[in-house]
């Protein structure tokens, strides 16, 4: 089946891409670039790097900008999906939704309206198992944003390796945060994987952190040989 993957460059959408690739053709990625920092659907730091990830994966990408107002961003998503249907003849959409009924139901409605398939292969997955799958599939991921106490600026830019996963699990038990960040506690960025023809190399980045929220703002990055 020809599919498009809703892609932010974070670990969940990348894992969804990996799963979609196993037995299907991923014809393109779709990214929604939201100006609204409070967006329920799409806001993520470093969304500007989706182009680099798409180049590294050698997959076409459709990018649509949105002001991020609640219903407007859904209309913009629908527009992007329609464009993928027209340009790449896709028959379905794949997302990395894990637990948000808000996100999942809205995507389901759009796909249903357009009479295409909607797949959410991480749906209801245990968060720790997702983190472990990231390691076992050799995906290089960094923490690009933290949005909950006790996650502080020391986490920003750090790789999601076994030590970091153990630390996040411990904190999730103590402070009731989601270890994989499904509640919006953590945002991530994929830099490399076995499917990447080139890796993303960060040339310059800054940490912005205050009031228990911060982002690892990547100012300059490029593709590098592996």
């Amino acid at each position, binding site marked *: 089946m020809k599919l498009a993957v809703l892609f932010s460059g974070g670990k969940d959408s990348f894992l969804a891409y990996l799963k979609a690739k196993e037995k299907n053709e991923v014809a393109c990625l779709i990214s929604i670039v939201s100006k609204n920092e409070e967006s329920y659907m799409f806001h993520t730091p470093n969304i500007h790097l989706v182009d680099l990830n798409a180049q590294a994966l050698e997959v076409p990408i459709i990018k649509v900008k949105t002001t991020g107002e609640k219903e407007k961003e859904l209309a913009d998503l629908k527009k992007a999906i329609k464009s993928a249907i027209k340009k790449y003849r896709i028959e379905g959409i794949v997302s990395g939704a894990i637990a948000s009924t808000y996100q999942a*139901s809205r995507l389901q409605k759009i796909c249903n309206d357009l009479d295409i398939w*909607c797949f*959410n292969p991480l749906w209801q997955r245990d968060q720790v198992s997702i983190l472990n799958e990231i390691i076992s599939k050799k995906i290089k991921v960094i923490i690009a944003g933290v949005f909950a106490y006790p996650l502080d600026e020391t986490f920003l830019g750090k790789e999601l390796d076994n030590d970091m996963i153990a630390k996040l699990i411990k904190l999730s038990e103590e402070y009731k945060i989601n270890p994989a960040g499904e509640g919006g506690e953590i945002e991530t960025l994929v830099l490399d994987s076995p499917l990447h023809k080139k890796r993303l190399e960060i040339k310059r980045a800054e940490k912005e952190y205050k009031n228990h929220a911060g982002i690892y703002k990547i100012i300059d990055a490029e593709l590098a040989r592996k």
Partner: protein
Amino acid sequence: MILIINMCKQGLGLSYEEFVQPIDDIVGKDNDSGKKVVHYLNINKKMIDKADKIIICGTALKDNDYIEHIEKFQWLKDTESKVLGICAGAQVIAKVFGGKIIKNKEIGVVDIEIIDKRALITDIIKNQAYALHNYGIKLTDSFIIGAKSKKSTQYFKHKEKEIYGVLFHPEVLNKEMIWKF
């Protein structure tokens, strides 16, 4: 042994991960008596006889293949096992016992009103559930309706058998129902 029936059209691995794997994960956590996942087209009498409990899963909104294969579920009429049908599973239960599968769309979180507690495996604690269907059900009087949403029958039980159906997806907001089952 708990038998988990995969209702996804064959070849839809991504739907399996979305609709069957979560049920398998919930059952797997505290289950000592064993479990087995089987596709509905591959069910045989031996499997049904061996199962103490059977869960018939849901599938993707666009997947209606199971409606073309209702004859594969005639074992429901004879089984003595406890059965829980989820969404597509609830639809086939209704159909096998003489009811109808009717157009009825609900996508997202719906409010649930309890009608008759005798038909419930466990109470719906949150009075909310996650619905994902283009088809609903029209039941015969062989069933007790346990709960409804504004648009459809959501929860029912066969009057004489331990056969339950839920049109919503308990694996999302009502996991305790599956644990209890």
